[in-house]
């Protein structure tokens, strides 16, 4: 039987409540956009398999609740992620300001090798814009992240940003993936954390799991 996928890993969506995390995700996985969707409580899950450089990658995406109060809970999930989207809303200065707080939490709780990408969502709402594209670019530069302005509504840069983060995670895990084509079973990067390895440097551990 053919493998359904070659690699499995987890991406996490973080950002203030209402910046459009769930909408980004729905657009990416189902190509749907519902302006009146339901609030996320705790964490929701989606999955999609995409092909990058001939590698079939199954990504699990964890979509978290944005309210600050929930961070006690959602922080527990950071360490399970290989890639993280930091999302703000271009029509909300506050959500942009909060990215710094989200980023510092990620530094504290996520594994060292985690890949990050900055997203300014709702790019279609130009008339309500409070955050200039240049500000987004600058923040991304400061943190050494890639940056996209996206719109789940008009389907702008959705596929591009998800693919880009996937590429970054793949690059970061090149070593483990070197023998991939020879391996019979999929590589489960997401499983690393489940073996309770110490988060620091875990990705570089040679016992990276192939099971």
């Amino acid at each position, binding site marked *: 039987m053919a493998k359904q996928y070659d690699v499995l890993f987890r991406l996490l969506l973080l950002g203030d409540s209402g910046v459009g995390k769930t909408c980004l995700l729905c657009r990416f996985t189902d190509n749907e956009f519902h302006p009146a969707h*339901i609030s996320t409580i705790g964490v929701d899950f989606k999955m999609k398999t995409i092909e990058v450089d001939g590698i079939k990658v199954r990504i699990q995406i964890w979509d978290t609740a944005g309210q600050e109060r929930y961070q006690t809970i959602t922080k527990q999930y950071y360490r399970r992620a290989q890639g993280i989207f930091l999302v703000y809303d271009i029509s909300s200065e506050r959500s942009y300001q909060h990215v710094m707080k989200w980023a510092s939490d990620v530094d504290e709780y996520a594994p060292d090798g985690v890949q990050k990408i900055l997203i300014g969502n709702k790019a279609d709402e130009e008339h309500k814009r409070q955050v200039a594209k240049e500000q987004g670019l600058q923040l991304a530069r400061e943190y050494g992240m890639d940056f996209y302005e996206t719109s789940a509504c008009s389907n702008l840069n959705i596929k591009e940003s998800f693919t880009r983060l996937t590429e970054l995670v793949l690059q970061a895990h090149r070593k483990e993936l070197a023998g991939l084509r020879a391996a019979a079973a999929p590589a489960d990067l997401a499983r690393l954390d489940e073996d309770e390895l110490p988060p620091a440097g875990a990705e570089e551990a040679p016992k990276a799991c192939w099971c």
Partner: protein
Amino acid sequence: LTNLFIFPFFFCRNLFTRKPNARLEKPNDVGWKLFGKVPVRENSQKDPKNVQKEYEEKTGRAHRPLSPKQNVRKNLDFEPLSTTALILEDRPANLPAKPAEEAQKHRQQYEEMVVQAKKRELKEAQKRKKQLEERCKLEDSIGNAVLTWNNEILPNWETMCCSRRVRELWWQGIPPSVRGRVWSLAIGNELNITHELYEICLARAKEKWRSLSTGGAEVECEDAGFSAADREASLELIKLDISRTFPNLCIFQQGGPYHDMLHSILGAYTCYRPDVGYVQGMSFIAAVLILNLDTADAFIAFSNLLNKPCQMAFFRVDHGLMLTYFAAFEVFFEENLPKLFAHFKKNNLTPDIYLIDWIFTLYSKSLPLDLACRVWDVFCRDGEEFLFRTALGILKLFEDILTKMDFIHIAQFLTKLPEDLPSEEFFTSIAAIQMQSRNKKWAQVLAALQKDNREMEKGSPSLKR
């Protein structure tokens, strides 16, 4: 769609629809015509030659639509076709007549079809009659239950609420017309909140909204330590979340009939309990209460409900205590469903993944609303333990498929349960869950775990899970 429509008449040579050139395609083979009529919604079943309906139902059942939205769309698509008639006609006069033999054959086929259709029609009618009878029976029993609740139970609440008979009636679901009153009585009003207090809290909330919207000076409140920005964020979050509370019902959104009520209750609560504030998930609880109670009574029930230990632990995000609840849940999980428990462990699927959503919203987000209300009914009767029993009931109901799934599929499934949960099976499954573990009840297990936790914290604070 057209294919499905034609299917029973595959030997029928021509189809006369509204397409004008359909007649031109094979003008030589006129057999019989199929007419599509614009139906009158209600009387489609009275048409004796209605064959379409059955196909509509058949196909509706064959590919059961996943979302109600799709369902609606599908029905609409079918609507214009829902009455059809089959008429046997001779060939037009300008064409040579059919040979007698062929005409005879066609007549025979035609009659067979009509007989078949009639048979199906009769069967349908019988089925409908049975459904109607069942419905009447159900309505009767609801009517009787309403009488019992109104005349016997509610006037003698204190003495009757714990009786075996009332508890049984309670389990079967509280009739919607008395539901709010029963919930209010069962939740109680330990906090002694009056309608006046609600008005005061609401007035304060409105004052805050005004001062924030005018960008005015600091409103000094007793909730010191909460910056103006935080409060503003919380008020904005309420606004945002109201529009995302049961969006499908379209009654809580801006301009909807219950928008202001929901806004008022949540706002008043942030003034009543500034230490708790607004937490996502509350809007769902308030919304369900609003559907069953007047605003002030809904507020009283809301505040008292949130004041219960389990709800307080969750809404204040007391992580240690939440973990204790999850641990207690796992004790009963392992006891009731050992196989599934092992499977979840193997896949590293911790209870927080699905319980957070279920407990925070008291199932109102994940279950169909009528089922959620029935869960609330028994939750009001049995307390927090029933929330966890319900969770186990859900896991039990889907045990077979869940054991075949991996992490992500289980997580997706449990955070978005099927919308067509059968209510009787669902409650049978919950009833089969034993909330006893080695002779210990839920409260005892929970208390023991809490005690362990406290001792562990005392011993070494870093040993917390």
